[in-house]
Each structure stands twice: as C-alpha cells, then as structure tokens.
C-alpha cells in the first residue's frame, strides 16, 4: 500500500471512531436533548472524516466536490431533523407536566 492509501485509511478510521463515540453517547446519555447533542455533532464530523478519506483514495477533483456537497446537504438535513426532534420532545415534556 502506498502512503496516500495509509493516510486515507487513517482518516476513515478516525471517522469511524467519531461514529462509535456518537453511538455511545446515544446509549449512555440520560436525556433526549443530550443524546441529540452527541449524535448530530459526532455524526457530522465523523462523516466529514470519512469523506476526506474517500476523496484522498479516489484522487479525482470532481468526485471530491460531489462528496463535499453530499456532506453539506447531510449537515443541513441533520440539523433540521435535530431541531424537529427537540421541538417534539419539548412538547411532550410540557404535556406531561400539565
């Protein structure tokens, strides 16, 4: 294996570590809000590292731009769904308090 493949492999590994950290947070945090915090942040950064690893492996500029676009779109939709889940959880908590 060449040097750039080792670099790509290490980026992929770091990305997977972030995903595992996010999954751990999902399992161990006590509350919906803290779980959302762990998931959205760790998953987006993990995805960024994985995309960096794939781009280094492929070596093509157009593929890299497409992958970065995919990453930006996933960040958008992940942020929106995080907000919607938090809003629904807040409403459920308010209903339970009444």
């Amino acid at each position, binding site marked *: 294996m060449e040097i750039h493949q080792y670099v790509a492999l290490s980026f992929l590994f770091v990305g997977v570590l972030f995903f595992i950290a996010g999954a751990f947070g999902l399992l161990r945090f006590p509350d919906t809000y803290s779980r959302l915090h762990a998931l959205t942040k760790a998953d987006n950064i993990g995805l960024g590292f994985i995309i960096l690893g794939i781009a280094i492996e492929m070596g093509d500029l157009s593929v890299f731009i497409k992958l970065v676009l995919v990453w930006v*779109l996933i960040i958008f939709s992940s942020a*929106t769904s995080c907000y*919607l889940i938090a809003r629904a959880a807040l409403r459920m908590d308010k209903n339970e308090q009444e």
Partner: protein
Amino acid sequence: MYVDYFDYVLALILIFLTWQMLRVKDLLTSIVLFIIFGMLIALAWMQLKAPDIALVEAVIGSALTGVLFLGALGYIESKSQVVYVEKKNVLITSRVYTISLTILTAFLGFILFLTMWKLPEQQVGLHHHAMSALPESGVKNPVTAVILNFRGYDTLLEIGVLLLVVIAVFALNATRLVIINTSLKRKSRILAAFLYLLSPLMVLVGFYMLWAGGHAPGGAFQAGAMLAGVGILMLMGGGSLPLSMKFRVMRFIYAIGFASFICVGILVGNETRHFLQYPPSLAKYLIFMIEIFATISIAATLVTLFAGCTGLLLAQEDHVVKVKGKSL
C-alpha cells in the same frame, strides 16, 4: 469464490435486526429498527451487484415506508386516550402455540434451504438474451431496458396498481375534502426554510435521476420518490396541497402515467402489430416520454398515500379546508 468477511457480518446483523425488530414491545422502536433494516438491506444489494435496487430500496423501501409507518403510529398514538395494554403481552399468550409455530416455520425454512442447495451454483439466466437485445432497446442501462422495454407489461400494471391504490385510499376517506392544509397543527418555520433552500435542489436531483436512468442506475420510480419527498416535507411542515379527485388537474396528474403508457402501447401496436412493441428507432424517445409522465404520476400518488396513512384525509376540523360552493 470465497465469501468476504463483510458479507458474513452483514448477514448476521440483518438476521439479528429482523428478530429484534419484531420482538421489541415499543412500536416506535420497532419502526425505527425497520428503517435501519432497510438501509442495511440497501448495503446488501450493493454487495450483490444491484445498484438500481439499492437506490430504490433506500429511497422507497426504507425511508418512504418508514415515514408511512410513523405517520400511522403517530395518528393512532395521538388519538388514543389509553396507553395500549399490549406493552405487557406482545404475543398470543399460549406458550405451546408459540413454540410449535416456531418449530413449524423453522421446518419450512429448512425445506426451502434444501431446495436452494440443490440449485446449480453457476447457471445461465436470461442475461445473454437481455444483453444481446440491448442495442435495440434504446437505452444503455440493462435494468431500465428490461423494465420499460422487454418487460413493459409488468411496469404498465405496476403503475396501474399505484393508480388503483390512490383511488382506494380516496374511497376509504371523506371525499368531500378538497385541500389539505396542515398549518394549524404542524407549522414549522425551520422546516419551511429548509424546503425553501433545498426543494429546487431536490427537484433538480429528481429530474437528473430520471434522465440518468437511461445509462446509469436511476429511472422513473426513484425520481418520483424524490419529488414525493418534497411534497411530504411540505405537508409535514405546515403547507397546503390540493389532494383530491375533485380537481380536474389532479385527476389528470394521477392518471397520466398509466394513460400515457397505454396510449403509447396502442399507438406502436398500430405500427408493429403488437401491443407495446416499440420500433427500435423510436424506442429511446418513447421510453423517455413514458418515464416523464410516470414520474409525475408516481410523485403525486406517493404524496397522497402519505396523506392517507397519516390520517390527513379523514374529515377532521384541525387540518382540512373545504372549498364551499365552487364547482371544480
């Protein structure tokens, strides 16, 4: 001919996930596990060298079906005053019944496994016939050629099934309703802003997938599902859509996929003496025209099915708008 370790791990995860998904007491967990199951199945399709099916499974089979399930569950949970007692006993309670059923189905599985084991490991399917006739079909993607040209009857009836299901869903519910407006209960500015920014991109990607179906994985169904995603997000964030058979335009949109397919079949049948036998010179344009109309039809149908499964088509005061006095 060795099996990759990844395949073993994936197969084990899929079996474990199936068992857990049916077994958990909470229905929300069950549906979320179903969505994850669908995504991993899409990964399995990629391992089986079927990228078209991976695309369809990820978009329609997993995400759209999951959304339909969540909508139905949300409607049932929001209307029920009593927490459903099933959380205690999930199964039919007799132990003997469960165990004997498990043994019987395992036996059936064993028979199926023996049948599969006897099939030859290498065999020639219809691959050669499809590939040798591919230049005459008008498209370069073999799966699209099979769907829209070689086995066009199947796709014709599939679009017919979609039309039938829309009619049936409308027949179940209140047919006096005209415009579905969800702004009162579900209005969300963030979702509206998300749609405002991204729906042009979604429509563009949808039509690109339609165009790319000729030479790469893609096609009418994936494009239709993408456009339906825009409609579903609009309904979820508080919008209003005219989902009703009372408008002539909507009737046209629902029926145009099926109707255009039949019309093309009859018109080419005049020339080539067989229903749906495209003349090879015109095949490319006919396929593309059928796909465009089918995409529009499929998108409208899927949005209406979402509204039907979420309880939006039932006559309730908080989310529907009736147009009074105007004949449309």
